[in-house]
């Protein structure tokens, strides 16, 4: 599904005066081919243990990660039938060796486009309690079918976007089939983090 990007202006959500923002992508999103995917739809039940994952590099040692913003869609299109039922999403921060630094779960609704009466992709912003990170680290998001995460379609495998498999502590490239297609395409999850 190709989605419009009217919600992106709300990305300022993650911005506070002291926050430095890091994007998972280069350039302007409005000029990219963006799709949205929930892993539960692609993989079924195993997706409960699989996360959309982006590797970032801390701008300096002991950089404090404070916000994670994921561009996504909860399925609400304005109709009563599409009002999402509450589900639990999870977010993890892992160091370069994939050790768990922080874990957070919550209902998707407080962050979703539905509660903001938005019917298209929207930036879901989660605030964290200043997680110190150094060097490379990973942000892992378990959509659990509650949120379709926006991704940029690439021509070659992303060096920064992955899918993370919880059991086995393993990263795989984020190459997945789009809806109605058999072949996998390289994807780059649209994530913005903030910190200082």
């Amino acid at each position, binding site marked *: 599904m190709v989605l419009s990007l009217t919600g992106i202006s709300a990305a300022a959500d993650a911005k506070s005066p002291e926050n430095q923002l890091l994007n998972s992508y280069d350039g302007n999103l409005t000029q990219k081919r963006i799709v949205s995917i929930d892993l539960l739809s692609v993989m079924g039940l195993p997706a409960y243990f699989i996360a959309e994952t982006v590797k970032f590099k801390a701008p300096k040692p002991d950089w404090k990660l404070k916000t994670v913003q994921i561009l996504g869609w909860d399925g609400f299109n304005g109709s009563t039938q599409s009002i999402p039922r509450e*589900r639990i999403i999870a977010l993890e921060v892992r160091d370069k*060796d994939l050790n768990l630094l922080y874990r957070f779960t919550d209902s998707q609704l407080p962050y979703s486009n539905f509660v903001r009466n938005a019917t298209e992709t929207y930036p879901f912003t989660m605030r964290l309690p200043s997680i110190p990170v150094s060097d490379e680290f990973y942000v892992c998001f378990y959509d659990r079918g509650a949120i379709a995460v926006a991704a940029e379609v690439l021509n070659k495998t992303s060096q920064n976007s992955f899918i993370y498999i919880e059991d086995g502590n393993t990263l795989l490239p984020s190459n997945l089939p789009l809806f109605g297609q058999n072949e996998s395409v390289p994807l780059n999850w649209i994530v913005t983090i903030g910190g200082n």
Partner: protein
Amino acid sequence: MKKTILLLACLCCAALCINAIAATAATPQLTTLRGDSGQNYSQINFTLFSSLVEFGSLGVGEAVKFTAPKAGWKLQTVRVLGWSGYNKSTQSYPSDRNIMLEIRDKDLNILYKFADAQNNYFLSDIGPRFGEIEMPGVAVTGDFYVVYYDRGAAPIGTETANATGNSYLFMNGQMEPAEFPLSETNETVKVNWLMEALGN
């Protein structure tokens, strides 16, 4: 069930991804602590217990006291035997409900707290399974408690013989021994909650 799911996940991912595995983290050597009889699990007689069913309260937790092997030992994972259930007639799993886990020091101060939907840990169509809850290296020293709140969503495996005295019910801010009177004989039976603490 989880192994089946994960095997499917791996196969699925292997099929979906063009490249081979990008990275796999080294598995750290973990020490496993148990609060039950320590017998082989295949030899343990157990039943499932829910504090919500027994006490009608979401605020009663099943707790096990462990002792850290050394000062500053890092608790990395808790494994709890539990089950969220499966309806064979309709071949359906239960809806998501919340469970909660706390780590408390010997004075019952909270060191770590985590809640999530039970199906992410205890989903199985064949019965109870060990759900693994990973945590970010919680430092513990001396005695500490792992408190699991089943909340009726995923009752906990309960060993009904060979009580070690390390299992408790955490209620009203206090640890009470995990023991229950049998109405037939008026005898009190102590139990062991089946959970493990893994760390290094």
